């Protein structure tokens, strides 16, 4: 079995055989202060294995971002690329600019760091983070939607789509076209046909 090991295996398995460091951070003999322990806990929320590996993401404008694997795999697209072995050096993301990618990484980091606990405080904190996260201008919001769709990050897609849904709720098509500068690409006959096929919803 040893002779079948290649660099990929070593890259993947090596962190399993590292000593389990630190051995017992709670032990006063090792001299860790309370703040060091809290810092350790917040930086290593799941297991030692996932936090020691980083992934490099490359935006469409050539900027690189190094992120923890646990954060990167919030994106199902990136997760599948890693599993298929396409992530040896860096992962190129030609559809995402650095401005949007940095925001997406910020979102994923926050969601990975906050444990899915029933703790009300953590839940409230995440909710207010999400609410502030989408307080951006329209073009950034739509860029985020497209990025979340491309990177397949369900929670970010839900959040951004809900925000847009709230913006268009209760408005007529005419009002929406005006607000969002949308071209009506229907002929009058087509538009009438669509209205007729949806009339059942208003009876």
């Amino acid at each position, binding site marked *: 079995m040893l002779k079948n090991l290649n660099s990929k295996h070593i890259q993947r398995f090596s962190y399993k055989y590292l000593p389990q460091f630190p051995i017992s951070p709670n032990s006063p003999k090792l001299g860790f202060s309370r703040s060091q322990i809290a810092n350790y806990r917040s930086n290593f929320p799941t297991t030692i294995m996932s936090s020691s590996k980083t992934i490099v993401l490359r935006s469409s404008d050539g900027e690189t971002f190094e992120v923890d694997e646990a954060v990167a795999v919030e994106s199902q697209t990136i997760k599948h690329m890693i599993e298929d072995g396409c992530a040896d050096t860096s992962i190129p993301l030609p559809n995402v600019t650095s401005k949007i990618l940095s925001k997406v990484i910020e979102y994923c980091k926050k969601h990975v760091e906050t444990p899915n606990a029933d703790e009300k405080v953590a839940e409230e904190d995440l909710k207010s983070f999400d609410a502030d996260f989408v307080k951006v201008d329209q073009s950034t919001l739509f860029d985020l939607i497209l990025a979340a769709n491309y990177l397949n990050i369900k929670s970010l897609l839900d959040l951004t789509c809900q925000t847009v*849904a709230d913006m268009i709720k209760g408005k007529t098509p005419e009002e929406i076209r005006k607000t969002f500068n949308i071209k009506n690409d229907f002929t009058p006959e087509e538009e009438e046909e669509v209205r007729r096929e949806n009339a059942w*919803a208003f009876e």
Partner: protein
Amino acid sequence: MGSGLSSFLLICNSTTTAPPVSPEPGLGDLPESVVGYILLHLTPQEICTLASLNHAFHHASLADFVWESKLPKNYEMFVSRVFDDDKFCYNLCKKDVYAKLSTPTFIDGGTKNVWLDKGTGKACVLISSNGLAITGIDDRRYWSWISTEESRFCSVAYLQQIWWFEVDGEVEFPFPCGTYTLYFRLQLGRSGRRFGRRVCNSDHVHGWDIKPVKFQLSTSDGQKAISQCYLSTDPGKWNLYRAGDFVVEDSKVPMKIKFSMTQIDCTHTKGGLCVDGVVILPK
């Protein structure tokens, strides 16, 4: 889960062709699949309104994954209970299934009328007085049938006078999950049309202000509700009298409900009441 996989495949397909993203994308630049995710967060009426926005919105409004999320989880049970031929389900897109289920349909020999509430996707059930067990209904001294256009069932039961007033009923139906309220639709007085105008005859109305009417409701999973109230003394108006609420938690099992309305104090007679039937609506 299936929609997640298909959307991933969509992403794979789109990345191989990778059209350049416009510098400042707007709502009108979003691809159909993404618009579908936005429509998931809107009500069916809003989706139908936005279908006429542009082509992308129109196509997204036809997507199965959008309407699958609006249909109740037990909609297949609903279809087989309501329609004799449930095969049509397989040939229609989910939007058309939703449209068909939200159109009122008569079932059980015309004694019930059911539909899905368009906004919430929960069931609404009307039960005609024809489908209820009314004590003394066959005795023409007490009860008679009146044709009227004010009832979906075209006729209502009219009470001249009786000592023992009891209306019972039961229904078994695959209600989608949620909370429902059961009402009795009643009118004091007998309305009709004379010379094109609606008139109300309240000659027989008596006895409802002496003792209250008792409503009872019980379900197959042990929920019970009892209430009583005096019928409104405003003749000529159809009113919904609330009998009680019930909660459906498991939509895989059809909920069986028994209900009744009684006024059996035999020291006095009561009469002059039109009974249209029972109404079950989502809360």
